[in-house]
């Protein structure tokens, strides 16, 4: 039986981890993810799970110990945010090459300097090119379900890649909503246990992991990583279908909201998509045909499917919660890339909003929609929402 619980986004992740009951969980406090590992530690302290935990001395060691445990054969997890992800980046970058299917919740938060602590996507947008699967979540419900999906996806024998599951820091992370937690037995049967075909603790079959590969092999190994990444899209849908049997939900690469006949569409990740849906409803009621596309699977990026979904939209605004200084903002760049193949291209506008936790309101999104509808757009110009003059 499923139960509804009032949970913050970080609690929702801890609930997913309770049901996954990993062999090893590694914890370092880097707020706003800290409650994830605190809630989980309490489950351990109360005997609700029998996971072994390691309270490490740094985020670098958090990912290192997780890698050690995963290489040893365990289902191992840790969680992070912003500066923590930045510090562990060296090890994070090594994980895909080691082909260890580690799932890490990331609670998105701005990067220093200035030191900030509030939400934006600068942390994970700095880690889009190194071979992790990335899934963004709108709210507590989505992040809970994405965690379950990610475990199976990462560990699939045709994938064996690590996955980050994102939620917006503070907004989702600390905001409490009702979350439906699905039946323990059904979820546990779905997530199963990790069964690696080779691991360090299999001492009768010793193997070397993490060797030195020089120019004669390095490129070939990296090319295999890309091949694994190519499998992700198909398996993501397959595992999503299986998860649907428990949750009754669908797990597409992105959510399309009132998109089909839209005159203007906004593309935005995570919690802001909720605000944008409300705006769409309000404007639709006023007779304005606007819609939304919310990417969920961000790595690998579903270019073909996004192109098909947006091909008939006259004008698209892409809202980024991070900047790529000196280049197009990260989500905007992907949408622009996706549309290149079209003969008749939609008009495009890039907007950057919400850096360092700056609030965005329905009125801001409505203003952007009206700007798009007016056709006053410039695909070469980055515009800013909520920036003081």
């Amino acid at each position, binding site marked *: 039986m499923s139960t509804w619980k009032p949970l913050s986004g970080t609690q929702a992740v801890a609930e997913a981890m309770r049901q996954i009951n990993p062999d090893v969980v590694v914890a370092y406090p880097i707020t706003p993810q800290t409650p994830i590992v605190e809630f989980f530690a309490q489950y351990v302290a109360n005997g609700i799970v029998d996971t072994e935990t390691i309270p490490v*001395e740094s985020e*670098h*060691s958090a990912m290192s110990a997780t890698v050690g445990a995963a290489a040893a054969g*365990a289902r191992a997890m840790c969680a992070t945010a912003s500066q923590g992800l930045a510090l562990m980046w060296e090890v994070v970058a090594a994980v895909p090459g080691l082909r260890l299917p580690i799932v890490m919740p990331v609670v998105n938060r701005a990067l220093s300097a200035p030191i900030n602590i509030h939400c934006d996507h600068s942390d994970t947008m700095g880690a889009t090119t190194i071979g992790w699967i990335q899934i963004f979540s709108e709210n507590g419900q989505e992040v809970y379900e994405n965690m379950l999906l990610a475990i199976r996806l990462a560990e699939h024998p045709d994938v064996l890649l690590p996955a980050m599951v994102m939620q917006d820091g503070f907004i989702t992370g600390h905001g409490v909503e009702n979350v439906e937690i699905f039946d323990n037995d059904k979820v546990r049967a779905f997530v199963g246990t990790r069964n690696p075909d080779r691991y*360090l603790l299999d001492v009768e079959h010793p193997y*070397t992991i*993490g*060797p030195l590969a020089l120019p004669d092999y390095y490129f070939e190994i990296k090319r295999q990583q890309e091949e694994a990444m190519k499998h992700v899209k198909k398996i993501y849908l397959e595992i999503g279908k299986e998860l649907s049997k428990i949750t009754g939900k669908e797990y597409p690469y992105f959510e399309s909201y009132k998109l089909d006949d839209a005159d203007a569409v906004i593309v935005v990740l995570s919690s802001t998509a909720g605000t944008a849906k409300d705006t769409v409803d309000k404007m639709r009621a006023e007779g304005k045909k606007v819609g939304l596309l919310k990417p969920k699977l961000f790595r690998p990026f579903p270019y073909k499917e996004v192109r098909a979904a947006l091909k008939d939209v006259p004008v698209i605004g892409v809202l980024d919660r991070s900047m790529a200084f000196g280049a197009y903002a990260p989500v905007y760049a992907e949408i622009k890339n996706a549309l290149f193949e079209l003969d008749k291209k939609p008009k495009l506008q890039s907007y950057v909003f919400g850096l360092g936790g700056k609030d965005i309101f329905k009125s801001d999104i409505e203003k952007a929609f009206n700007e798009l509808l007016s056709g006053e757009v410039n695909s070469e110009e980055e515009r800013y929402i909520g920036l003081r003059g």
Partner: protein
Amino acid sequence: MATLQEIMSKPAGLAPGHRMCAGCGIGSIVRAILAASEKPVIIANATGCLEVVTTIYPYSAWKVPWVHVTFENAAAVASGIETAYRSLRKRGKIDKDVNILAFGGDGGTYDIGFQALSGALERGHNFMYVVYDNEGYMNTGNQRSAATPYGANTTTVPAGSKSFGKPQWRKNIVEIAAAHRIPYTAQAANHNIIDLYNKAKKGFEADGPAFLAVLQPCTTNWRFDPAATMSYSKLAVETNFWPLYEVENGKVHVNYKPKNRKPIEEFLKGQGRFKHLFKAENKHIIEKMQMMIDEEWERLLKLEESGIVL
């Protein structure tokens, strides 16, 4: 008590065919330590000489499970392996007994891996950390580390008309490890394989973390005749430059006391990294080095004699 022949006749976890420099002694350190384990061993290796020469893909010299991730995280990786071991045993997924071992060079231990090492020792993971100490970043061509001795000429702190080389004494990594109140720490040297073997055995059998520092004279960057590796290891001990001692449950025990301590010049001469110290204007550097060595030795003897628990 095992003989040298018995130790070296045990099946080797490290196969021949690795690509260590001619005259390098890291292989004999690894073999002696692996021979001391009664159980299968799993190794976490920091980036460094041992890692690069044993695993040039698609080859591996390791016949035991082995993992390398980065330069500074061998102790953290080992703590993950040890925790996975406890978890999978508890859950009935494995039933074998194993020993978990981490190897790092002095750069990966004294310097960049210091925090991860301290964290793993403080948390009390049941594993042994071994630093093969060649007194600098030798894999990358003789850069200064916290283990580099006073007066040594390195590429990052070279000797020159205004410099005699490294102006600091080396960090006392063994006492720092012991300060974590772990059950076993020891200092060993490459030439005394039986002493090294016995210390590794105690380390493996300790109930908690163990730390072992082993001197590894580097023919390539200390710049001496490749045939002289073991002689330099022995001279380091005979001059009291590198005393053989252990700290067992906090108590210091000096394993070898030279009857006639040799002057430090005996160790320095023939090494390219100390050649400049034999110029007349640097005589005082050697004198100061001798004074520091004698003071450290006296201090160590007093620690042993006092029976104070470190």
